[in-house]
């Protein structure tokens, strides 16, 4: 196994985007100038809703889409004007894009064949990758005779057999069922640890992002909302967009106003002490809310609407000051006859966002 590992261990390259822009014309700007740096060997997940430009970004790095402006540096080399094959990138596509008329072996060996690698070496390298991906028994089959998970592994094998410096994944797991997706996630994680190629993984699935990424780059309308570790993104979202995009159920966002000493909800209930004035958006994760049945301290009163029992915990939906707030709590069944809830929002767990820009503002709670 060790011999195989070293055989297909890639020389990872760092990637730098300098003012990279994609625009079809003056009106349709898909990606406004973007600067970002991905470290060598890092697994970056690009996360965003559909149409946020994440696939376009990936295709520009791959060389399948032209860059309107800016520079792409891979391993210190300027590549934005090079053909795809000269960038040292390999890609795994969403619908696998395997060649249906070629066997699994031919599919994986094709890039080596094009590159003029000798037949014996081609066979050896494909065999090594096939062993690693448990595909050795399927080399003579055509893609049509494989299951979805096997096809996905062939697509991955085809990408890594060339020992690329950069591995690009374009929503590769979205065609698989839930169980298979989970298995492939684990496999991909292991694979990345063994190969070590700089990887960029595009997805709209936050679970994939949280589990796979060293760092997550969250895109919204072509702009970077936040680029940080999964942990930091979860605990310190940089904007309302990120806060609502990550977490299931997502973070609750409530409009509040500060009068210099306390923050009040829209219905006047005091939610926290803070030396702030003006309008803000207050965020709190469903699992950070403490549910009580008696009013104490700054607990706010909410009316329970419905309850979803998930076994390990329950998700409650309640009306609070004109908006719906979701609470994840281990106590579900006990509250069944309790239409009135008292919610304690711990000051340390509150997130404050600017009412207009939606960006996180510094926290200034008196109670800390």
């Amino acid at each position, binding site marked *: 196994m060790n011999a195989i590992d070293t055989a297909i261990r890639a020389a990872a390259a760092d990637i730098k985007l300098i003012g990279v822009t994609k625009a079809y014309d003056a009106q349709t700007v898909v990606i406004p100038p973007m600067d970002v740096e991905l470290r060598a060997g890092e697994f970056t997940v690009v996360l965003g809703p559909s149409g946020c430009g994440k696939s376009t970004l990936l*295709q520009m790095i*791959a*060389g*399948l889409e032209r860059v309107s402006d800016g520079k792409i540096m891979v391993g210190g080399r300027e590549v934005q004007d090079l*053909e*795809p*094959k000269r960038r040292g*990138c*390999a*890609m795994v*596509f*969403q*619908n696998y*894009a*395997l*060649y*249906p*008329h070629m066997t699994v072996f031919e599919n994986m060996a*094709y*890039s080596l064949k*094009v*590159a003029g690698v000798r037949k014996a070496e081609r066979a050896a390298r494909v065999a090594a990758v096939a062993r690693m991906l448990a595909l050795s028994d399927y080399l003579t089959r*055509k*893609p*049509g005779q494989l299951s979805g998970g096997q096809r996905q592994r062939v697509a991955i094998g*085809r*990408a890594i057999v*060339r020992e690329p410096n950069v591995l690009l994944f374009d929503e590769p797991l979205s065609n698989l069922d839930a169980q298979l997706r989970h298995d492939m996630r684990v496999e991909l994680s292991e694979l990345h640890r063994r190969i070590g190629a700089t990887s960029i993984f595009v997805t709209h699935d936050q679970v994939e992002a949280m589990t796979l990424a060293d760092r997550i780059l969250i895109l919204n309308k072509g702009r970077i909302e936040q680029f940080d570790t999964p942990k930091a993104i979860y605990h310190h979202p940089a904007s309302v967009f990120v806060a609502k995009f990550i977490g299931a159920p997502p973070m609750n966002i409530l409009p509040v106003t500060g009068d210099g000493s306390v923050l009040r909800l829209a219905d006047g209930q005091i939610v926290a002490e803070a030396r702030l004035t003006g309008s803000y958006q207050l965020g709190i994760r469903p699992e950070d809310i403490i549910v009580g049945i008696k009013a104490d301290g700054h607990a706010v009163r909410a009316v329970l609407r419905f309850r979803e029992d998930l076994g390990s915990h329950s998700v409650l939906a309640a009306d609070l000051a004109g908006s719906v707030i979701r609470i994840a709590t281990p106590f579900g069944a006990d509250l069944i006859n309790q239409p009135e809830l008292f919610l304690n929002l711990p000051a340390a767990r509150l997130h404050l966002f600017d009412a207009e820009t939606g960006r996180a503002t510094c926290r200034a709670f008196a109670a800390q």
Partner: protein
Amino acid sequence: MSSDSTLFSNRWLPVLLVAPMMLLIALFFYVPIFQAFYWSFFLERPFGGGSEFVGLDNFARVLADPEFWKAGWRTIIFMVTASSLAVLVPLILAVAADRKIRLSLPARNVLVWPKGVAGASIGVVFAFIFNPFVGILAPLNSIFPGIWAPGINGTDAFITLIAAHVWGGIPFNFVILLAGLQSIPRTMHQAAAMDGAGPWRRIFDVQLPLIMPQLFLTLVLEFTESVTSAFALIDTITNGGPGGATTLLVYKIYMDGFSGYDLSGASTQTAILMVFVIILTAAQFIFLGRRVNYER
């Protein structure tokens, strides 16, 4: 049976819908063909009235005729060259149009127009285009006198026929092949590009293998059609000349039957031609059809 009833509530409706087409095919294809087969065993009088069963005498007579073999050989040459070109030229055009090169959109439109032109009209137009005095090759003749003379030179006449046939075959084959190319997913091209294959390499490694079903279809149709559809072109461009150089079997059948009044001989040759086309098509399916990969 259940699948029929799910599509049509009335079981006679499908029959009714198919009937006109079946009637036409029977009346203008099956009846004449079987009549030709039947007549090929009889000696018919040129002006009707009384016929005599002669067994295989007609076949013996036709097969002993060197003119039949010459016409048959020309038919095969025409079939192979004209139908190969009639697939190859649209294929090149389709690959180019698929690539979205400049002007490919209007070209796509214009290339389909010949579909609306009847074979005889194509013949008349090409007779004019390749006319040695006023046609497009006329300037060549003023430099090298006599280099282009389809009226005298059999090869030149043959080339004219092939050119006309290929042009007439462009629309259908172009549409079928272009549709095949366009149904190849974009990611397939992207994957090949990522694998390092340039545009030329992708044509042979990805595009052609993936449109094999379409290529096979056009080839089979072309091979069978080229045997008979050449008639209109020959009749309008060369009349089988010069010196019989463009008399293909289908034209010889017409001449023998309707000018020479050798109805039995013409029927016999029709029967032979028919059997030849059947064998040819079957052979294509047996030797090529099995290798076509229909998987996408």
